[in-house]
């Protein structure tokens, strides 16, 4: 397998890529082994001198193995380009050969991290959703090579059958659509982790947000704190550790927004969105410049997100979603992640309108009037299945085992839940305007998905016996990027939406990818 086939010109990336592999390995290690690291740190703090040196030796060994592994990974990593496909061979223990057709490539981005910048090198990430969850990263190739490679791949990405479109492609004249100031990015930073503060403040989750990212960060932060606490407990009294916990709680409350602002500035400072023919390009970053591009026809859905903080500033964040393999969105797994979304941050209301109709031609966002679902059924299901069982269990046990006065919690909890359910019902809506479908979810803020009807992949309608009597149904719309569920809607509307979507899908030969 190591033999190079005749006529195939296998290339290696620059040796600087070793650093990239090392970073990757370290990140994986931290991601997978966070609890283990905490335990080791705690053990280290409490260990005797001889044991400490043992742990140090083990750490040194791990670092050496990491470096050796990275060098091997770099040696094994080779790529070549034949005609319209890119071949990659990689893997130290588990060897892999990947061949990706340019047509299947969803997204290409060029990054210049601080460690490759001095060498004039860049990382080229190729997102190949649709053919298994694979991302190819060429870590450490010359920047001009990366740029020209991207150009070749994008030009061959799909043989464009539309003449008008290809003409536009050739005239490739980049024009700026949007640029964001440091202030805008700071506002974006404040908006991203709102849920995070809420989690700490209330400790409860309610609504229809995409929490996973925040929850992950929250967990990470929590583990770090535990580590600090165990450190504090090791050294002394209860009071000092209590003070530390209190101080940390306060600091988190003030620090977290600051951290997310700083993070956003690092990632998105100097944000510029431009269009070149049919290709959007986004350029941002303080130290590492990120350069991502996306063809307009790859957009599967546009998601407009406005949470509570964003509402205070009257800003909206837009995500452009592309096809992703194995999103498992309906199973509530981790979201597609930043790689398969293309971010347009902190937009003013009029910019939202302009850009939405830019991304989705002839989409009339302003004319949307959302229809609502059946409140009674929605509330009954939410109360009966999501609220009452845990509430009854908790108040029941507390009342029976601790104090009967806890029974007063029941109406309070149910009342709050009812208010919250009513609120999320108010926000839940669907609409069809022209060739586009709209689905909105929300609690305090809103998350609206706009999708071209002809890009729908599959439609399901589900009906329980009760719903059949009431003329209601659940409608599931599966997009290549994610799935949307409209519960308890009138079956008449569900059928009409299904027929309309099928009509748009089946009456056109326009490729959806």
């Amino acid at each position, binding site marked *: 397998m190591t033999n190079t086939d005749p006529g195939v010109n296998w290339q290696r990336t620059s040796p600087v890529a070793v650093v990239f592999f090392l970073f990757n390995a370290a990140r994986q290690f931290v991601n997978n082994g966070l609890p283990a690291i905490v335990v080791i740190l705690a053990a280290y703090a409490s260990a005797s001198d001889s044991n400490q040196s043992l742990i140090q030796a083990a750490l040194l060994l791990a670092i050496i193995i990491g470096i050796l592994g990275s060098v091997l990974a770099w040696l094994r990593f080779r790529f070549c380009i034949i005609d319209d496909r890119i071949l990659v061979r990689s893997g130290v223990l588990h060897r892999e050969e990947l061949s990706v057709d340019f047509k299947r490539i969803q997204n290409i981005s060029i990054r210049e991290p601080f460690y490759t910048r001095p060498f004039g090198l860049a990382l080229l990430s190729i997102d190949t959703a649709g053919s298994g969850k694979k991302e190819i990263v060429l870590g450490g190739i010359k920047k001009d090579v990366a740029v020209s490679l991207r150009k070749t791949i994008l030009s061959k990405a799909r043989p464009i059958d539309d003449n008008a479109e290809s003409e536009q492609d050739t005239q490739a004249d980049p024009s700026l659509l949007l640029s964001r100031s440091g202030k805008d990015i700071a506002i974006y930073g404040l908006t991203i982790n709102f849920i995070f503060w809420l989690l700490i403040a209330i400790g409860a989750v309610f609504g229809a947000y995409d929490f996973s990212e925040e929850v992950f960060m929250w967990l990470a932060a929590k583990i770090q704190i535990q580590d600090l606490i165990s450190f504090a407990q090791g050294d002394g009294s209860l009071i000092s550790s209590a003070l530390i916990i209190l101080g940390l709680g306060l600091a988190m409350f003030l620090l977290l927004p600051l951290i997310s602002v700083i993070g956003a500035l690092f990632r998105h400072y100097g944000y510029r969105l431009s269009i070149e023919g049919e290709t959007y390009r986004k350029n941002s970053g303080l130290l590492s410049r990120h350069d991502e591009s996306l063809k307009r026809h790859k957009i599967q859905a546009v998601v407009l997100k406005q949470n509570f903080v964003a509402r205070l500033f009257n800003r909206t964040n837009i995500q452009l979603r592309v096809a992703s393999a194995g999103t*498992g969105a309906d199973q509530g797994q981790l979201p597609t992640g930043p790689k398969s979304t293309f971010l347009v941050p902190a937009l003013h209301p009029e910019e939202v309108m302009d850009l939405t109709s830019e991304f989705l031609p002839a989409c009339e966002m302003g004319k949307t009037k959302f229809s609502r679902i059946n409140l009674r059924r929605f509330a009954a299901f939410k109360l009966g299945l999501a609220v009452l069982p845990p509430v009854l269990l908790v108040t029941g046990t507390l009342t029976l085992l601790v104090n009967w006065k806890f029974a007063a919690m029941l109406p309070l909890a149910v009342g709050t839940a009812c208010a919250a359910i009513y609120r999320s019902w108010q926000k839940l809506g669907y609409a069809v305007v022209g060739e586009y479908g709209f689905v909105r979810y929300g609690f305090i803020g809103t998350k609206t998905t706009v999708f071209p009807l002809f890009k729908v*992949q*599959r439609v399901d309608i589900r009906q329980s016996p009760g719903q059949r009597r009431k003329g209601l149904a659940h409608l599931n719309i599966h997009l*290549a990027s994610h799935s949307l569920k409209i519960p308890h809607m009138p079956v008449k509307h569900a059928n*009409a939406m299904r027929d309309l979507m099928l009509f748009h899908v089946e009456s056109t030969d326009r490729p*959806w990818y």
Partner: protein
Amino acid sequence: MAFVNLQLAIDDLPAAAEIEMEPMSAEYRREVLSQQFIIWIPALLGSFLPFVLAQRYFLLAIPVIVLLLGLFIGSLVVRMSGVKGIALREHDIAYRSGLYWRKTVVLAFNRVQHVEVSSGPLQRKFGLATLKFFTAGGSSVDLKVDGLARERAEQIRAYVLGKSDVADSE
């Protein structure tokens, strides 16, 4: 209301809710039935074991419970196989399932990425096959149709393949 605006046009569209569903192959019911026998007969025999070992009469309650459970679940599964239906239209395929919680999936041929026909040992015995359709955006099977006669499955696959440039595998 924007939605009503479209109502006129929608009334003229072909309605997926009015598709006539074609039931599964007659052999399918027999296959499901024998599957249930294969599961429940050994379970029933096994449930006599406590009685045989301990020789206490009240232990005979276990086989009775297993028998009732088997009859209940078996009849449910067989009835479920009876309500399944499939329909082909010019541009899409519809599949209905579910005894109480009814589900209808409609899949347009030009969104099908990949079609698969498979059949297990029991299915082969009854000349049946499972047809699976895959679309983008999900790692799992998007539409799985059990209980089609082997030739019918092949026929549908050929039909779908003829409608779109999709990959197929067996």
